[in-house]
């Protein structure tokens, strides 16, 4: 009798998703689906709104990475109004953006994804969270994490008014100069941020990389896909978050294309399935061939793993050292192992910390000249940034007053939507055999999406429904024959109907 397993919802991520696993008569996986159950309709309801409000409206797509939407939108306004930000405004925006990356990546490592490694993939689910992490690494380290995030977010408040839903961006600049009285606080923070990043990498090294079981897990076929990779690069092909061309490489690391924001629709197309509200981007020239990897399939990946693959290096010295260690440990470029995202994310934390330090020492940051008022009549604008979760594209059309008439968003997590479906499918096939299921195995299926640090709220511009975890077992006619639940102490139990 074939069976169906539902994991709803998947946890420790931003947003809602569920996994449907279909087993054949032998209890092996026939096919696993990752479904996203909602849509919020941002692209429609922004029509009629003034374009200058878009950085604040689109930040409401995601309160976890509001900075990414805010900045992509602000850059789209630059393009829409045909204006370049002043040097000071650019420095402030970049500083703001690296602060955002730094604290957001830390959130993922210690709260969302890290528990799988630090507490353990098949640990008691009741402990597999930040409190469990603090239990493992100690209260002092826990306080260190809270403290560095607090200081990063304090700086963001000073620069952008608010952390969650900033008010910084305007076409051609920012709303206010860097507050001079915060300079000493910033300099002290920058130095500590670099140290904290190194400490986090050391922790990853001792807890994960020096544990052969974990290293084998990272390198295993269960979490492997050969796809195209996309990421922003600077003029020297180094990893870049704020501004640059977007580069795509193939499975062997060879550049396929580079594009600027207005060219995005020549490179990227989106596929629609009836069973998920999420859309599935692919490389237009290669085409949509279904949920398969390999060179003939247009599926590409974004976010830390992809960014490090798509670039030739890091522009800061400590991050560059770590970049080299990363590729030499994992067997050279490109790295196709999905779980390597966790390490790549930490390389980026170090890079952001170093950039914060460089920017804090730059003269331009402290200049009061933060607005270029030479605005042109608007009609269409494009803006791209690297969000913590991947390449983020905003595209607006307006009337001559700058009132929105059209909007298209290729949101960061969307870039991994097809790859995540494949990763879930592959992990489920490899881990579930002969109908044997336990919570550790199911969590290891979830780890296949968690490595991407997805934000499904962003991806469908929507957020979740159910907060349950249960597995329904049904017969082929859909009749419920049993339910698998996690009980109070986190153990798995089966309730027969």
């Amino acid at each position, binding site marked *: 009798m074939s069976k169906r397993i539902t994991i709803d919802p998947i946890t420790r991520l931003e947003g809602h998703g569920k996994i449907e696993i279909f087993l054949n008569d032998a209890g092996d996986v026939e096919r696993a689906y990752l479904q996203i159950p*909602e849509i919020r309709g941002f692209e429609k309801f922004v029509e009629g709104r003034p374009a200058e409000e878009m950085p604040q409206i689109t930040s409401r797509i995601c309160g976890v990475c509001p900075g990414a939407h805010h900045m992509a939108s602000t850059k789209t306004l630059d393009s829409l109004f045909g204006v370049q930000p002043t040097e000071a405004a650019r420095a402030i925006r970049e500083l703001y953006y690296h602060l955002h990356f730094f604290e957001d990546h830390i959130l993922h490592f210690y709260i969302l994804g890290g528990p799988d490694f630090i507490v353990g993939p098949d640990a008691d689910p*009741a402990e597999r969270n930040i409190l469990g992490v603090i239990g493992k690494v100690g209260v002092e380290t826990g306080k260190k994490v809270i403290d560095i995030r607090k200081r990063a977010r304090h700086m963001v408040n000073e620069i952008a008014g608010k952390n969650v839903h900033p008010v910084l961006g305007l076409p051609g600049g920012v709303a206010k100069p860097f507050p001079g009285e915060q300079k000493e606080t910033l300099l002290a923070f920058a130095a500590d941020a670099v140290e904290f990043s190194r400490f986090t990498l050391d922790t990853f090294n001792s807890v994960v990389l020096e544990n052969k079981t974990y290293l084998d897990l990272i390198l295993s076929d269960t979490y492997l896909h050969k796809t195209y990779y996309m990421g922003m690069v600077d003029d020297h092909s180094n990893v870049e978050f704020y501004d640059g061309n977007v580069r795509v490489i193939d499975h062997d690391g060879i550049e396929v294309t580079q594009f600027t924001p207005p060219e995005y*629709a020549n490179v990227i197309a989106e596929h629609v399935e009836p069973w*998920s509200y999420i859309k599935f981007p692919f490389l237009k020239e290669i085409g949509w061939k279904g949920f398969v990897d390999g060179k003939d399939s247009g599926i590409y990946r974004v976010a830390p793993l992809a960014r490090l693959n798509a670039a030739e290096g890091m522009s800061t010295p400590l991050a560059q050292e770590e970049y080299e260690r990363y590729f030499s440990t994992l067997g050279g470029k490109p790295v196709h192992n999905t779980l390597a995202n966790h390490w790549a994310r930490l390389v980026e934390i170090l890079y952001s910390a170093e950039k914060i330090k460089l920017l804090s020492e730059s003269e331009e940051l402290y200049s009061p000249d933060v607005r270029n008022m030479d605005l042109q009549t608007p009609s269409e604008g494009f803006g791209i940034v690297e969000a913590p979760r991947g390449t983020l594209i905003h595209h607006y059309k307006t009337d001559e007053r700058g009132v929105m008439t059209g909007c298209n968003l290729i949101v960061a997590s969307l870039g991994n939507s097809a790859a995540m479906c494949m990763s879930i499918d592959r992990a489920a096939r490899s881990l579930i055999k002969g109908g044997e299921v336990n919570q550790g195995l199911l969590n290891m299926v979830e780890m296949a999406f968690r490595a991407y640090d997805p934000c499904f709220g962003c991806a469908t511009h929507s957020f979740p429904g159910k907060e349950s975890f249960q597995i329904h077992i049904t017969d082929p006619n859909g009749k419920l024959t049993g339910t698998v*639940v996690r009980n109070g102490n986190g153990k798995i139990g089966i309730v027969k109907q």
Partner: protein
Amino acid sequence: MSKPKVAVSWNSSCGGCDESIVDLEEKILDVAEAVEFVLWPCAMDFKYEQIEALPDEDITVSLINGAIQNTDQEHVVKLLRRKSKIVIAFGSCACYGGVPSLLNLKNLDDSFRVSYTNSPTVINEQGTVPSADSEDDGHALSLPSVYKSVRKLDDVIDVDYFLPGCPPTASMIASALTALLEGKLPERKSVLASNKSLCSSCSRNDSKPETVSIKNLVRIHEVKADPGLCFLAQGIICMGPATRDGCDYPCIKGNMPCTGCLGPFDRTDQGAKMTGTLGGLLEAGDEEAAKKMADGIVDPAGTFYRYSVAASLLGGKREGEENE
């Protein structure tokens, strides 16, 4: 004595309310010490069955954020209502519909068209749209249905208290939790924030115009805003006069006007209040001047009701509307 049980849950929201709880920083460790979390999906692997197994009203308080946009969400908030002594509508989406309820000014079918067929990047020759029931390769799959309009939480369940803000600030959250733990919550149905206007605490209030004096309305990107002067005095629409106080005006400190995220005061329509205020300040000598002034407000609905469409006459739950 056992610790008070706390559930945190989200619906159609952005996760910003959850982030704001994390922004309690080291205080979150004290909170984790004082209470027992029984649900917090974005941070912890707690499960729904555990909630169903609890006796009714066993949870001391449920903090529910996000607007309600589909049947799944309705199901969960009804469950939490049954299991909780106190439900707090957490954040402006739960209190007033929030930014997502701007969708109530549009047609849902248009929204699907824009996303799935008319987008400049979508290749969808068959016109596929996601649907409640579908089949892929012999596998039956389902999705929840989306409501035609976005609701605030108390359209769906009885709500005891309201904590507005987009998001509520960490200090507002700390005050509410302290009042709760000390048994000092105000009268049921209260909004857990001041009932004064934002202007009452704003550092720029001294320069706020009191009489007819605004000759021109300008948009924020068209000018370099003076960092010390009331935005209204500069002809820039600031929602302060129609918006509840309590956030410590961070946007204005960021040199940007208030957009109204804490919503209206008690028994007030935010847009009506703002329109009235502007009416008393705009200097429109003749019909032509008045028309020019009105043209300066390019998006009245989205400006005056940015966070409160679902709580307004404009775009609340529509009469006779089906749930699905």
